[in-house]
């Protein structure tokens, strides 16, 4: 089974990286962009097909290691091995 964990800065946290990219986009003429926030995408392959169990474990280790709950949130998505994702 494959999993994808998206780690994002909490909305209250300033994202200077996103702000810099926003400024660059606007300089390039993409003035319709009004906000950019940058996070992390972590892709995992997991030796289990029990999606409930995988989800529980993923939540556990995402909280413990992949994200810092003080400043970040995370979302988990699961995919079958055969999916093209």
């Amino acid at each position, binding site marked *: 089974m494959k999993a994808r964990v998206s780690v994002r800065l909490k909305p209250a946290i300033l994202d*200077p990286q996103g702000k810099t990219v926003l400024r660059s986009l606007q300089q390039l003429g993409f003035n319709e962009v009004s906000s950019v926030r940058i996070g992390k995408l972590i892709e995992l392959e997991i030796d289990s097909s029990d999606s409930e169990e995988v989800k529980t474990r993923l939540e556990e280790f995402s909280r413990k*290691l992949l994200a810092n709950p003080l400043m970040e949130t995370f979302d988990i998505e699961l995919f079958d091995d055969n999916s093209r994702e």
Partner: protein
Amino acid sequence: MTTAESKLTRWGVVIFPGSNCDKDALDAVGRILDQDVRAIWHRDEHLDDLEVVILPGGFSYGDYLRAGAIARFAPVLERVIDFAERGGLVIGICNGFQVLTETGLLPGALMRNEGLRFICREVTLRTEKTDTPFTCRLMDGQVINLPIAHNEGNFYLPPDQLEELEANGQVVFRYCDANGGISAEANPNGSLNNIAGITNRNGNVLGMMPHPERRTDPILGNPDGANIFRSVIDYIRRK
């Protein structure tokens, strides 16, 4: 000299893969201050003989994922956590501070610098608290000079926890101007309340972004950093 005055204090400096200020810390405490100091490898399990543990600066485990995030699960960290919980003195400098926040021994997180640049320069710091083992030789409000060298030094805590940190008097150093004034201009990295260094609630764990080990040898200019290590030596000898 009495026995108490001449007693060597026992220090350890943890070395993670990617640490790069470990030698400076060993040199500051061992050669310059003439104390008993040894290196602790990140896989070591034994540090009960020590009185002070330093987590040095650098890029432990390449700063992968988040600065300090992987070091937090190094085998030696469990021992450091035990050591701190039993009242042992712990100093986290720069990357060491980041590791201490990841372990939860210190509150908060160190985020990317507001200006997104790695900053390497001398800063002035105002001493906010002198009743700690790390600052007992300093005076309240004393302005000291130390270098910073970091990319993630932007101290963050949610507002309610920040209020608690301040109310408990856990802030030890703030970035200030030459006269000790606290302002946005004197803040190099965007840290909330200009915070540069804090202790835990019990006061036995210090985390700071500036590098005292780089200002310990008098040959390198002002020895303001030495005062921090000498405070610890005084504190242990007085105990």
